């Protein structure tokens, strides 16, 4: 991999981290625990979904693993209003 690609990937990751956080939709969640199980830094995403609170821990990587793995589409990455962009 070229160094420019690495730099690009890191830039995208930083952008994602700055731009959003994981938001649960409790009505869709069945507490199966797949989200917490696959979180690389062991955030209990399932508990957030039960309580209906976004994952706004500063150490959340916003890697999107939980969002992609949830079999019920209960999680989404949403932008924070502070960094909301036009368009």
């Amino acid at each position, binding site marked *: 991999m070229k160094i420019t690609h690495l730099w690009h990937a890191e830039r995208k990751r930083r952008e994602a981290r700055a731009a959003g956080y994981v938001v649960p*939709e*409790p*009505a*869709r*969640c*069945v*507490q*199966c*625990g*797949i989200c*917490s*199980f696959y979180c690389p830094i062991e955030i209990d995403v*399932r*508990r957030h979904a*039960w309580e209906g609170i976004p994952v706004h821990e500063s150490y959340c990587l916003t890697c999107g693993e939980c969002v992609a793995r949830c*079999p*019920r*589409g*209960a999680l989404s990455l949403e932008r924070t209003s502070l960094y909301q962009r036009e368009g």
Partner: protein
Amino acid sequence: MRRYLIVGSGVAGVSAAQTLRRLDPAGEVTMVSYDPFGYYSRPGLAYYLTNEIGEKQLFPFQEKDWQALKIRRLRAWVSRLHPAEHRLELSDGASLVYDRLLLATGSQALPLGIPGADLEGVVKLDDLADARRILNLCKRARRAIVIGGAITALELVEGLRACRLQVTYLLRGSRYWSGVLDETEARLVERRLAEEGVHILPHTELAAFQGQRGRLTGAVTTTGQHIPCDLAAAAIGIAPRKELAAAAGLRTERGILVNDYLETSAPDIYAAGDVAQIVDPLTGEAALDTLWGPARRSGAAAAQNMAGEAARYLKQVPFNVTRLAGLPVTIIGRVGQGADQDVAGIVRGDSETWRQLPNAIIVEQSYEVNRLRLLVGERALVGAVVMGDQTLSRPIYELVRGGVDLSSCREALFSSPRPAEVIGEFWRSWRAQSET
């Protein structure tokens, strides 16, 4: 100090316990359940069978969560209920008295009424003990058959395939889940199952299981065909566990009948979750749901009423997001297709409301594995099935739930070759309007 008693440790019971603790910090809350595993994600068993998660992940609460909740948990079988005395009798002869009682006893699989159903190797998927049994049997089983319909049958099919068994799926009718899916949707699922190596046998009904030394060796169909197998999994429907209530003289039908405040016909006794039969404002009829979301909401609402807050519980538009043959599927509102020969009554992850035949025009769009079926009523959307791409799942749920007037896009919906785009565009403008 008020004494609250909850029978059942499923999501309705746990949600009630949390709400009671919040509303009445000094109240004494006792939860009685016969399930040795207590509270776990019943829908998660599907992912446990496919080995996507381990057993540990099924338990949303850790010991510290229970301690924080400050409730008493009892593992016991409740043998009788005495409403006049406000008392429960346990199978060991002990008694529990209550000021307010919640029955959240859930539901259980209907038994297969054919000879040989008691052989080792014939299984169901009601609880964690069943899932453990299945995984254990899979270690030495080679060939499995699955009988039944709807979501649980496919969970079993996929779980057994994940364990590398040869799986034959028997359908009494001509296609999969005919009570909810239309023909195109059913064929889409069947095609994907076939691609996964599942052999589907339509128009096949079992007459008996056969076994040797108490172990399953095969099954015989009503036409005399012999199917060798060493595991048979059935999901032909469930029945709410209403016996305790019925024996105590509470009003019951298919489940325990409750009013909008989740009160049963006996004073100070409430019911919630799968066992509660609640009037659906959409149809005016008392209906059953076996969905996690409504179970949680009804448990919380019952607890509010038990604690003295008058909280009216209104059934919402039923919806479920599930995976059928690896394909995400959302079912919303009334999408009825009629009878289903593979299931009796209701199954898990199901709503009786879905099968109501609405007065609606069907609009559909398909592309490869993606399919959208909209049930367009006189004014608003009344139901939908979203298969594959789930982009429209949330927007459509909002439109059905809100009974949003579709007049401005009705014509376009019927005439456009891409109704998915029309409804997506309509939702965006509706949302933008409602935000301003």
